[in-house]
């Protein structure tokens, strides 16, 4: 049997799958066009609602947004947390990376001097329900508050002793380490640009 008839045979078998895949792809693109903006707006509102938690005392209404080019050459939108009287209190930096069950997206709060982490909020995660999804819980997230922002965080399985240590969630070491790595990478990537912003009078 020649190459051409065999290929025609495949197509005769599979044309329905191909046509359906194209139709469904088009349909999903239409759905995304229809509701994508609304989902983005929901996420923006969630981010703004989290800002007073991430940088204590910040007023979401005064928050400034700016695009910074990180050391990896990519643009990232960061939020400048401002108090009710207009004083610069700190920064909120989005960070994302691979977790155990899928992508994890977090927001990291930093003080104005970029010396201390002031809070952590999990926007998106697909970790194992009942184990890894405890990264959303306050018990895990509150550990990040007050940690140094210059030293990379490390995850330990027992009681955290050093200042830069985060205690892993039992049964979810990979999820815990993923969050710490995501925070470390984002801080390393954006520390320089943020410092230039702050130094340049922001």
């Amino acid at each position, binding site marked *: 049997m020649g190459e051409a008839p065999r290929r025609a045979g495949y197509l005769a078998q599979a044309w329905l799958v191909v046509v*359906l895949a194209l139709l*469904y792809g088009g349909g999903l693109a239409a759905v995304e066009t229809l509701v994508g903006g609304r989902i983005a707006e929901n996420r923006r509102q969630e981010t703004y609602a989290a800002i007073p938690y991430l940088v204590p005392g910040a007023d979401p209404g005064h928050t400034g947004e700016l695009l910074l080019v990180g050391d990896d050459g990519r643009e990232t939108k960061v939020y400048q947390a401002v108090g009710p009287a207009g004083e610069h209190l700190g920064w909120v930096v989005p960070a994302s990376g691979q977790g155990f069950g899928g992508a994890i997206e977090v927001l990291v709060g930093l003080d104005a001097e970029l010396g201390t982490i002031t809070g952590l909020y999990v926007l998106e995660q697909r970790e194992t329900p009942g184990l890894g999804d405890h990264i959303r819980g306050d018990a895990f997230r509150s550990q990040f508050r007050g940690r140094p922002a210059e030293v990379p965080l490390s995850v330990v399985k027992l009681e955290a002793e050093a200042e830069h240590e985060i205690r892993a969630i039992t049964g979810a070491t990979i999820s815990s380490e993923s969050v710490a790595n995501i925070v470390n990478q984002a801080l390393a990537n954006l520390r320089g640009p943020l410092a230039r912003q702050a130094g340049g009078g922001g």
Partner: protein
Amino acid sequence: MRHEGPTALERFVNGVLPENPVYRQLLGMCPTLAVTGAMKPAMTMAAATAFVLISANLLVSAIRGLLKPHLRILVFTLTIATFVTVADRFLAAYMYEMSKQLGPYVPLIIVNCVIISRCEICASKQGVGVALADALGMSLGFALALASIATVREILGSASWFGLPVLPASWPGWGIMVLPPGAFVTLGLLLGTAEWASKRRATTGIWATVRGLWSWRR
């Protein structure tokens, strides 16, 4: 060559109780256990599953003449995954909080065997009308099953139903009922009750079953 199967009415009625997806077929156990801690997430899940089941059944039934036997499962999965993605995006757009609460369980509707089994058993063999009735019956049966478990768990665990307080404030709230063990215990007891009732009805009729339940309660 025409396949003669159950009529639309039979398909609908069977889905609700006689072939209830949870209590009789033991399908869709993952959402049954995972999102029945309270009525609101359970009913959102039931509605999303119903949307996917009805859409997939209608579409598969409409193209059933074109299906190739060895590629049909691929077509079912592709169809189901598409409608699940649609449901997921609409939940994220219009019910953002609920969408976050349900988390990975909405995408997991793709692997809910209730849906692919209806595509295989009914929609790929029977007409659009019967497939619609089948999907409606199964969706209703699935919703009733989730509601029964969520009712027990939310009332005993949180003293509320659909978020409204139904038990006196002195009720301590059995925390375990909201947690995963409560799901297993409730499902096991309700499954046992359903099995016992159907056995008894088969031998002694419905009134004897009701009397039996009553005497056992006393």
